[in-house]
């Protein structure tokens, strides 16, 4: 059988994926790590405009999962497990205008990302688009650019 095709999530994905519990369906609970760190950043389109209607999901070793909608400034924030043997978290981005969800990764700057097998496939000049900055207090920042100068690396997962 052939795979069901993707379609854009559109601008109103919050109704189904970040539901208002006062309206009957409660939001899915994230699967949280024991000792979380904060990941955050801003999501930009190909013309450097913040994407205020997107949703980002994070998948990490051990079934850790969380999602967040970007705010009207394109900002996002998630909790993840501290970097361990696996130096990255997987991120999946959907929004109006994104026909098929985009897969990328956030690598922790203090982990051994340089010897990661997937990173080895990324042209050296683009690797920095995947490596977060340590902004202190257990927080890591990564801005994600869907297009334009400094376009983030996306994977064919």
């Amino acid at each position, binding site marked *: 059988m052939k795979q069901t095709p993707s*379609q854009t999530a559109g601008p109103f994905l919050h109704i189904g994926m970040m539901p208002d519990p006062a309206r009957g369906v409660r939001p899915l609970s994230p699967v949280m790590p024991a000792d979380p760190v904060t990941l955050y950043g801003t999501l930009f*389109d190909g013309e450097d405009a913040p994407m205020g209607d997107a949703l980002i999901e994070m998948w990490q070793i051990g079934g850790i999962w969380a999602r967040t909608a970007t705010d009207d400034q394109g900002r996002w924030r998630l909790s993840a497990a501290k970097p361990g043997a*696996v130096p990255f978290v997987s991120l999946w981005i959907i929004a109006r205008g994104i026909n098929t969800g985009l897969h990328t990764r956030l690598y922790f700057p203090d982990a051994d990302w340089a010897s990661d097998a997937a990173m080895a496939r990324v042209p050296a000049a683009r690797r920095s688009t995947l490596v977060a900055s340590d902004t202190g207090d257990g927080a890591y920042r990564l801005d994600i650019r869907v297009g334009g100068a400094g376009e983030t690396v996306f994977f064919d997962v």
Partner: protein
Amino acid sequence: MNPPDWTRHPPALTPGYFSSITRSPREGLIPLDPALADCTGPVFGAGDIGPMDSDLIRNAAQPGAMALGPRIIVHGRVLDEAGRGVSGALLELWQANAGGRYRHARDGYLAPLDPNFSGCGRVLTDADGGYRVETVMPGAYPFPNGPNAWRPAHIHFSVFGLAFAQRLVTQMYFEGDPMIRHCPIVATLPSAAAVEALTARYDPDHDRPMDARAFRFDIVLRGRRATPMAL
């Protein structure tokens, strides 16, 4: 995990759908080793689902009230590429009301909100991969994409299979809708067969007579290996 089938999924840049122009990567996707894609995801269960989640006619209605609009049943199976049912898949659904209006702060369409409808539903697949929801037929509505663009009646689906690589967001259309062939978002699909795959069939054998019509929509996720790596 089998790779994504790019003969089925729309490409990132589809200029006829204006929003894709600034929201499409232009560098090619970097292939991952397939073993790296077998990351298992969260396992959702009955505890994540409320008793009314799959009944959109009533789940946001006042006591004793129901949503307005043609009553429908949407059902089908979630399968993998080998045709095996995917048990325990979680489906999230959202849609406009019967007038084509979403309950969303950013939807300013003229059609009124229905006080008894939120347009949000959720369901888990059973042991055979089957699912069933009850709702009202969503209305068509215009959207900003040139001088006159309309969405056909559709229901948004978000699907969690058993692995990250099976994650899917899509839209279901309705057999016989003349708006399908005019829609710039439908036109992002790479083939007529892909459009067919997103078009639910009227299924009178599953109607509830004198109550609701049934439509059938099967969903095929990427095939899994026998022993996914527990990443």
